[in-house]
C-alpha cells in the first residue's frame, strides 16, 4: 500500500474507516495501473505506429488485453487528419467487373463498375470508411512502405465482395488518388489545369490488380506492374510532371 494514499484522518480508525481506507488504497492502485496503461498506449500513438520505440511496442502489446479490448488504443485512427503527404490526399477504390473469370479482361466487355465509397454525405462517417480502406491499401502500395501481402489481401477482399454482389467472375481493382491543389495556384505544374481541381490530370492510379474466381471457387489476385517497375518509353521530349506541385 502506498503510504501517501492511506486514509488521511489522524483519529483512531474505526472498522468502517479502516474498510474505507482499504477500499481507497485498492481503488488508488487500480486507477494508477489503468491510467499508466492508457498513457502508454496514447503516447505510443503515431501515424502508422511506425515511430514507436521497442519499449513502447512491447508495453503496448502487453497492455493489449486491456487497452485493445476496450479500444483505449486508437491505433488505426488518424487523429492528425493530414500530414501533408501525398498519402493523405483523397483516395478511393474503383472496381471494374467482367463476366467471366476464365477469360482475360481484354477479351471481355465491361459489365459494370463500382466505386468505394459511392455516394453518401461527407458529414457522415460511412463515406469516410471507404476512403480509409483505400488509404490503407495506398499506404502499402506506395514504394517506401510497399507491402504486397497487405495490398493483395485488400484487393482480394474488395474484388471478391464486388464479384459476389454482382455475380461476375473477374474484376480489376484500382486504387485511385487525387492530388490536391496548393493554396498558391502559381505553383501548379504544367499539365494540371489550375481552374479544375477535379480534372483527371490530378488523378493517379496507386495500385491496380486483377482479381478473379478460379475453378475451385477461390478468389485469386494478380497485381499489375506499377509505373515505377515498367521501363520508360524512349521519347525525345522532357518527361511531364507527375504531381501538381514542385514540392510534392
Amino acid at each position: 500500500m502506498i503510504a501517501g494514499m492511506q486514509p488521511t484522518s489522524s483519529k483512531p480508525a474505526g472498522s468502517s474507516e479502516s474498510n474505507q481506507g482499504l477500499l481507497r488504497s485498492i481503488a488508488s492502485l487500480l486507477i494508477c495501473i489503468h491510467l499508466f496503461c492508457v498513457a502508454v498506449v496514447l503516447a505510443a500513438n503515431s501515424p502508422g505506429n511506425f515511430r514507436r520505440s521497442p519499449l513502447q511496442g512491447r508495453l503496448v502489446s502487453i497492455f493489449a488485453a486491456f487497452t485493445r479490448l476496450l479500444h483505449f488504443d486508437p491505433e488505426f485512427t488518424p487523429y492528425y487528419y493530414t500530414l501533408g503527404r501525398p498519402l493523405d490526399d483523397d483516395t478511393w477504390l474503383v472496381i471494374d467487373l467482367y463476366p467471366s473469370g476464365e477469360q482475360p479482361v481484354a477479351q471481355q466487355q465491361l459489365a459494370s463498375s463500382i466505386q468505394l465509397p459511392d455516394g453518401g454525405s461527407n458529414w457522415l462517417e460511412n463515406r469516410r470508411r471507404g476512403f480509409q480502406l483505400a488509404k490503407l491499401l495506398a499506404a502499402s502500395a506506395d514504394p517506401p512502405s510497399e507491402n504486397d501481402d497487405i495490398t493483395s489481401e485488400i484487393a482480394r477482399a474488395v474484388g471478391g465482395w464486388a464479384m459476389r454482389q454482382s455475380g461476375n467472375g473477374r474484376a480489376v481493382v484500382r486504387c485511385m488518388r487525387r492530388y490536391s491543389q496548393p493554396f498558391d495556384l502559381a505553383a501548379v505544374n504544367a499539365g494540371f489545369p489550375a481552374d479544375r481541381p477535379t480534372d483527371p490530370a490530378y488523378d493517379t492510379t496507386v495500385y491496380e490488380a486483377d482479381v478473379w474466381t478460379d475453378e475451385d471457387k477461390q478468389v485469386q489476385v494478380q497485381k499489375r506492374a506499377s509505373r515505377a517497375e515498367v521501363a520508360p518509353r524512349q521519347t525525345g521530349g522532357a518527361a511531364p510532371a507527375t504531381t501538381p506541385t514542385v514540392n510534392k
Partner: protein
Amino acid sequence: MATGAKTDFTELAEDFGQKWNRFWFAPANPLPVCVLRIFVGMLAAAHFLELGQGLNVWYASDGVVPPAAVRRLLDLTSSGVEYRYSYLDGLPVSSALVVIHVLAILASLAFALGLLTRISGLLTLAALLAYIHRLPQIAGHVEPVLSFLIFYLCIAPSGARLSLDWRLFGSSKSKATLAWIVGSSDAPEVANVALRLTQVHLAMFYAMMGLTKLYGDAWWEGSAVWILLAQTQSRPVDLTGIRRWGQIGEYLINFWTHGIVYFELAFGILIWTRIGRPIVLWLSVLIWVSVIIATGHVLFGLTMLAANAAFLPAAVFEPFVRRPRVPETLPAAAAA
C-alpha cells in the same frame, strides 16, 4: 538530522496523500455524470444509426472485408495477440444482423434515458466494441472517445439523476441494492472517481491528438487546414474561395491550422488551472466547430464537446434540472 529528513518525507507523503484523496475521493454531486450520460447515450445512438447506413457493406460477415481477411490484415500490420472479439463476425447479411443492430440502438437510447443505466451502458459499450473489432482498420475518430466515456459512465452512478431509474428505484430504501446495481444510487465518491477518470483521460487524449499532428510538416507550416479544404472528394464544404483573399486568406489558413494544434497541446495543461479552464472550454466550442467544418467529423466534434462537460461544475447544470423528490444527503461542500 536523519530524523528531521524522515519527518519531512512523512509530511510530504501525508500532504501528497491528502491531495490525492481530495482529488480522487472527495464526494461529488453525480449531476455532471448524469448530464454526460444523456449526451453520450444520444451520441452513441446517433453513431449506431449512422453505422446502419453501411451495415451490410462493412459489418456483415460477408461484407467488403470478411472477418478472415481482417484477421490476416491484423497479423500483417500488428504485433502480438489482438484481443478483438465481435459477435458480428458470425452474422452475414440477414434480418438477424438488422435485429442485433436495432437492439444496439435501443440499448444506447435506454442508456440516454437512464433505464437500467449500468446494464444498458454495458450493453452499449459491448455493441460499440463489437463494431470496432469487426473491422478495426476503418474505425472512426469518435469510437475511442465514446468507448472511454461509456466505460467511465458505467462505473459512475450516472443514473442517480435525470433518469428513469431514479424514478423507479431512487426513492426507495428497500430497493437500495437494486439501485446500486443499475447505477441510480447516490454514490458521491464513485461519481468523483468516474468524473476524474474522464477528465484525466480526456486531457491525455487531447495531448495525443496534438502530438500526432507534430509528425507532419503541414501542421508546422500552417497549411494543414488548406490541404483538408482542398480535398475535392472528402471535404464537407468547399471553402477554397479563401484563396481569392490572397495573403489575408493564407494568414487565415495559417491561423486556423496553428490554432487547432496549439489548442490541443494546451488543453491538457490549461484545463487544470483556475483561470485557464473556462478559457479553453469556451475556445473548444470555436475549435471544434471549425474542425467539423474543415473535416466533416460531426459526431466526433460533438462528442469531444460533450466530453468537455466533465469539467463543468454541478452548479452549471442545477438551474436546468428539477430538484429530486428525495432530499439530498450530501454535505454542502460536496454538493458545491
